[in-house]
């Protein structure tokens, strides 16, 4: 039989790169592991939601379930897109595997949700400890003013204050900020010794990092901390030397040194066509497919969402990013978070080099919001 998996993501528009990474991860998995599970053939049906648009996302999910008869829904780059679909999972008898959307609360909306990516809380909490350990006691936090940014701000603040540091100021700036000079001026004036920043990966990070250098903050010794969204690999060539030395915490670096990752990077590069475009959503998609394959195995290809989800609760395996497991309670992925530093590799490309590992991190966000 053919088992269809519906994947909803941003395949065109401003976030096309991330959608492309979804596809690369999925293609890579199927290239390595074949497109059959038992006697069933797995087929992927892609649907495009270029920007956060819950209504569109829901309409497409409905279409995928009712018309395309998909047994699994996956993808979901933006939180509201995932949120919109959770109410129909039960009736549709379809599990949902989230490959990006990083707000903690989504998993609470339906028991049929499994997440193989990360949450902003998860990746932002360890950097607080890193900052404190680096001897920085006063930090200013600068985030983009939207859901994930606010999550990042809260996560950092919670972690940093627990460690004993002080967040002297918390700035939220509009998503569509082009010129960061005034922000840099604010940072300077705040008297902080370090800055914690969160911006969505993409064009604006370039301006931010450049402004950080150009306005003399780097020279002034103000340290820079951020979760890895800021230095995603596909942005690094553009950031160039400006990013050198920036420390970020994240769940995955393309340069991660393990045989699993080598195999993954090779397959994913082939799928995406250009290694420079490879970024973190690909690995979540890859692991998402792993989970879906396990679900298909467990249900023998029959459509039974509950059984499928139950089967992967507690599942543990070695992902390209390192050892991971699905937390049976929250159905969110437990994984290592790495501290990385941007360095120039021998071949002249820029990479996130892992320098420290925080093992088996769960999602602190869920507890924090509760």
């Amino acid at each position, binding site marked *: 039989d053919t088992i269809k998996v519906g994947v909803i993501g941003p395949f*065109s*528009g*401003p976030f*096309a*790169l991330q959608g*492309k990474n979804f596809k690369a991860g999925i293609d890579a998995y199927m290239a390595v592991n074949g497109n059959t599970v038992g006697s069933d053939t797995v087929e992927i049906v892609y649907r495009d939601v270029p920007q956060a648009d819950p209504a569109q996302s829901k309409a497409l999910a409905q279409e995928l379930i009712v018309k395309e008869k998909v047994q699994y829904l996956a993808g979901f780059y933006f939180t509201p897109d995932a949120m919109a679909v959770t109410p129909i999972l039960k009736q549709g008898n379809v599990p949902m595997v989230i490959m990006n959307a990083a707000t903690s609360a989504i998993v609470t909306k339906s028991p049929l949700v499994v997440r193989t990516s990360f949450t902003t809380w998860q990746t932002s909490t360890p950097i607080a400890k890193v900052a404190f350990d680096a001897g920085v006691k006063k930090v200013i936090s600068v985030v983009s*003013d939207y859901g994930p940014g606010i999550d990042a701000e809260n996560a950092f603040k919670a972690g940093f204050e627990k460690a004993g540091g002080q967040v002297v100021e918390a*700035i*939220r*700036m*509009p998503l*569509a*900020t*082009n*010129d960061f*000079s*005034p*922000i840099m*001026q*604010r940072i300077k*004036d705040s008297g902080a010794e370090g800055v914690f920043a969160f911006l969505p990966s*993409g*064009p604006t990070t*370039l*301006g931010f990092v*450049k402004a950080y250098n*150009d*306005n*003399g903050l780097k020279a002034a010794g103000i340290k820079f901390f951020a979760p890895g969204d800021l230095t995603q690999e*596909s*942005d690094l*060539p*553009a950031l*160039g030397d400006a990013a050198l030395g920036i420390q970020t915490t994240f769940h995955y670096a393309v340069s991660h040194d393990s045989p699993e990752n080598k195999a993954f990077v090779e397959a994913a590069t082939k799928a995406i066509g*250009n290694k*420079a*475009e490879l970024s973190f959503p690909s690995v979540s998609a890859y692991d998402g497919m792993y989970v879906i394959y396990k679900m298909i195995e467990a249900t023998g290809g029959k459509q039974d969402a509950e059984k499928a989800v139950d089967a992967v609760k507690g599942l543990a395996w070695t992902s390209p990013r390192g050892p991971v497991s699905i937390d049976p309670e929250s159905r969110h992925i437990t994984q290592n978070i790495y501290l990385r530093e941007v360095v120039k590799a021998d071949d002249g490309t820029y990479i996130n080099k892992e320098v420290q590992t925080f093992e088996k991190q769960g999602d602190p966000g869920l507890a924090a919001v509760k």
Partner: protein
Amino acid sequence: MQTVFSIAVDAFAYGMVLFVISIGLSVTMGLMRVVNLAHGAFAMIGGYIASYVARDLGLGYAAAVIAAVVITIIVAIPIECFLYRRIYGAPELTQVLMTIGITFCVIGIANYVMGPTLKTIPLPAALQGSADLGFRTIPVHRLFVILCGLAVALALWFAVDRTSFGVKQRASVDDAAMAAALGVRTDIIYAVSFAVAVGLAAFGGVVGAELLPVEPYYALRYMVTFLVVVSVGGAGSIPGALIACLLLGAIDTTGRYLMPEFGEFFFYLAVIAIICVFPRGLAGRVK
């Protein structure tokens, strides 16, 4: 006090960048009366060409700028002939439809050909680094953009207000049929104006790339910004556009400094206030 100066410098520099990038749009929109939503698309094409020439071919920055402007104009010629020529004088909404269509196509093609990642244009050593102003530093590149902005403003103002081409150009826009009846070759005038606008777009795309990095979605991402500064200035007025860019740059920068979380509010409230007071833009010509 130092902070005030510092903000002022940032504001001025940002305003000039806005000016350089959007002035081409003032030409199409004010002087040719075409609501050209594809302005960003041409700027982006320029950026891609410059990036290719400077990074992949390894030629110099100057070569990249020139190549960007020239090739973008060459690319634009058929687009003008077959598409824009059909919408001169058409209702605004038709123009919106056509130019959005063009933008979509350019985005799609850029995404396909160049890939979805950011492209940078390496700066020459002379433009890298920061200059010391005494009380603070400022990236040399910003100073360069400021100079470019002033030069463009002056040259354009001269061409439009002081040359016979400028007079004929404005006449053609006011009433193309009558201008033709008086012997003005309106199609040539339009083609040349369009080439100038596109060339300026490409130029702005290249020199502004430090602030607005080049990627496929560039064409839509900054569309609103361009539209806003040009209209607030009063489409077609070079001094108006300059003042608007500096003013909005200042508001944006100050707002972002004082209350970053309400940055957008300040900016758009200022836009609304200005237009309510000057319904034709700061220096809008009477129709």
